[in-house]
């Protein structure tokens, strides 16, 4: 899942003692010049830092990389999980470090499927302060439903909705469940005749040359998962047809997906 860092959280290590935030920090420069612009793909243990707004980093080849800040379930950044490894796909920038880590932009993370209890690190805050965050550790400022909802006009036309999944995952996160909901609502609104669902799987070539291929049953399970949500929401009577492509569809993260096509 990608998220682009529109705003940067600035870690003012050397100023922290002056404003009373913890022990003095040694200034750490942004990414080494030879790394900037590199596209990295690797699997590692995620690490959470116990800042007031917890931030996530990971270590790869001696460098610490920033992944994101704890948010809510509908955020672009889906926080990783301790007790699991994380697949990181991102581009190194020369932006100031955040949470002590080199900023990747864009960056996508996938929590790997199996339990790995060696991934168990919580770092102290060490004076890091996260300035930019979507919400704090307490309740949200506003109930999600009370945010303004746009009225959408549904024009009868063939439309597709791509539902993305984490690597080797057959259940979608909230933002992608909302896409399934959107597809179902659209199908019902236009009186669609048919909704087609195709499940796919992908692969990723890591920076160290290894190739990870998603599990062979992913396309079927993704398609069936999407189908179940479509049926739960309702498609206004449109027939739902499901199929899946057994072979990996490519290296791009978008291959880890199911495609919904609504046919008027």
């Amino acid at each position: 899942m990608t998220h682009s860092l529109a705003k940067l959280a600035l870690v003012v290590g050397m100023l922290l003692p002056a404003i009373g935030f913890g022990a003095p920090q040694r200034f750490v420069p942004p990414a080494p010049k030879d790394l900037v612009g590199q596209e990295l793909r690797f699997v590692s243990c995620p690490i959470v830092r116990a800042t007031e707004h917890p931030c996530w980093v990971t270590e790869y080849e001696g460098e610490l990389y920033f992944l994101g800040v704890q948010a809510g379930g509908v955020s672009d950044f889906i926080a990783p999980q301790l007790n699991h490894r994380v697949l990181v796909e991102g581009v190194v920038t020369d932006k100031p470090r955040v949470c002590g880590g080199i900023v990747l932009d864009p960056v996508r993370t996938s929590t790997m499927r199996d339990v790995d209890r060696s991934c168990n690190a919580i770092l102290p805050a060490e004076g890091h302060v996260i300035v930019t965050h979507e919400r704090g550790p307490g309740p949200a400022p506003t109930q999600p439903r009370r945010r303004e909802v746009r009225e959408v006009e549904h024009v009868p036309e063939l439309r597709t909705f791509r539902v993305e999944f984490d690597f080797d995952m057959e259940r979608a996160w909230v933002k992608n469940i909302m896409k399934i909901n959107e597809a179902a609502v659209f199908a019902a609104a236009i009186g669609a005749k048919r909704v087609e669902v195709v499940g796919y799987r992908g692969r990723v070539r890591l920076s160290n040359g290894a190739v990870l291929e998603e599990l062979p049953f992913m396309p079927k399970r993704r398609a069936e998962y999407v189908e179940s949500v479509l049926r739960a929401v309702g498609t206004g009577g449109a027939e739902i047809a499901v199929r899946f492509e057994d072979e990996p569809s490519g290296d791009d993260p978008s291959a880890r997906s199911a495609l919904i096509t609504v046919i008027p």
Partner: protein
Amino acid sequence: MILHRRATRGRNATVALTLVAIAGGGLARATAENERTVHSQWIEPGADIVLPAHANYQNALGGLGVINVAGDVHTSGHPFFEPIGTNGRACVTCHQPSDAMSLSLDSIRERWAATQGADPLFDTFDGANCPDQPRGERSSHSLLLDHGLFRIPLAWPPKRFDGTPVKPEFTIEVIKDPTGCNTHPTYGLQSKNPTISVYRRPRMAANLPYILRPGNPFSFKIGAKDIDPRTGRHASMNLMADGRLLSLEDQALDAMANHMQMHSAPDAVTLQRIVSYENQLYVAQQYDKRARKLGGEGAPYSLGPEAMIEYVDKYDYYLGDALDMPVFGGFEAWKSEPADGDEQQRARASIARGHDVFFLRPFWIRDATHINSVGLGNPIRRTCSTCHNAIMTGHDIAPAFMDVGTSNLPWAEARPELPLFKLECEPEAVPHPYLGRTVYTHDPGRALISGKCEDIGSLTMQQFRGLAARAPYFSNGTAKDIAGIVDFYDRRFDMQLTDQERTDLINFLGSL
């Protein structure tokens, strides 16, 4: 204090009784010296009484209010109160108004003492550790008498609502079987009708319009919510500990067939009367011995049974983990009570502080399936209201099942009296996100219905109302009292509560 009016057939005259306890046929008067104990105000199946529209029941922390929005109920002939099965039980046997429409351990023990175990409550089908154990011997009923637990036999493997079998993602091995039931040749997993027996608490049959609110058809926990075969629409899935029954009708039918050993289906009118009655009940603590009146003028708006009625249809959306839509609200006035004030003022201030511990105090929530595993990250630094987010009840609208470790090792407390199972997941199954593919558990919970490995140990959280009336808590009775609830979470999530925070949180929970 008026509790129950004895009905006089054919005449309007009633006798107002200032009763507090009915035990063993005797009557106890409400006097100051009785306030130290919890009184059982037991309603026997077939009782001929009138339950007032607003009934008051004393408990150790004060008083519980039970409101029936349809008015007084004459129990004689009412199917909720009549023993319509074959074992003498009625619905009320396990859903007593004085126990917040659940059943407290104190009430169970008082019935045992009063009837020497002859009460239908102790029917051996599920009121004994296993049906073959001799009725009336204390050891046969130890799980009920010591922990408030009933045997819940579930077919294995499970079936869907349409009767088609679910193919489980795991195998079950019985590691320890202190009750003997899971390895029993007639009642166990290797019997002709393979059955797994788990042991659970009765749930509250009140405030149900909140519990049954369906919400969105999809859930970020599970994708699609289950469809209620009766309505063809998605259900809340919050009625049962494992979400196996989606409607009050199906719960009633299941209870009649099993708990009441009824051998034929009831007629439609009987079923409808039971369901209607359950839907009419609103329950909350309404009086605290120190803070005094809960609810009404001068009190937080979310306290008291009247508030449960007022807010049941007030909002479009009942997610309460937000500052502008809190789960429980209105405590600002009590926060300003003076620290050196009288007992009432100090008690109110404590409850208000306890609310803030519940709603505002963050801690690391970690390794909890269906909360950490749904995209929030593991761990996440949040508050109690992150999971207990439903406005006015404190359950989870998402739906509410999750594994916080009440049943799964290593987090579950030592429970030598409960069966212990080893579940091995298939290589292609999504594993339990924090325990992997081999899980030891006292109760697989939702996994016994879904067949999914990742659901092992997930159980539907209950609402917070009427806690003072219905100890012990959690599905398997792990917490003996409200302090036990708080202490479980403090240990499980290393909350590091101060003594003051702990006391305040306990007081807050007791006021709901």
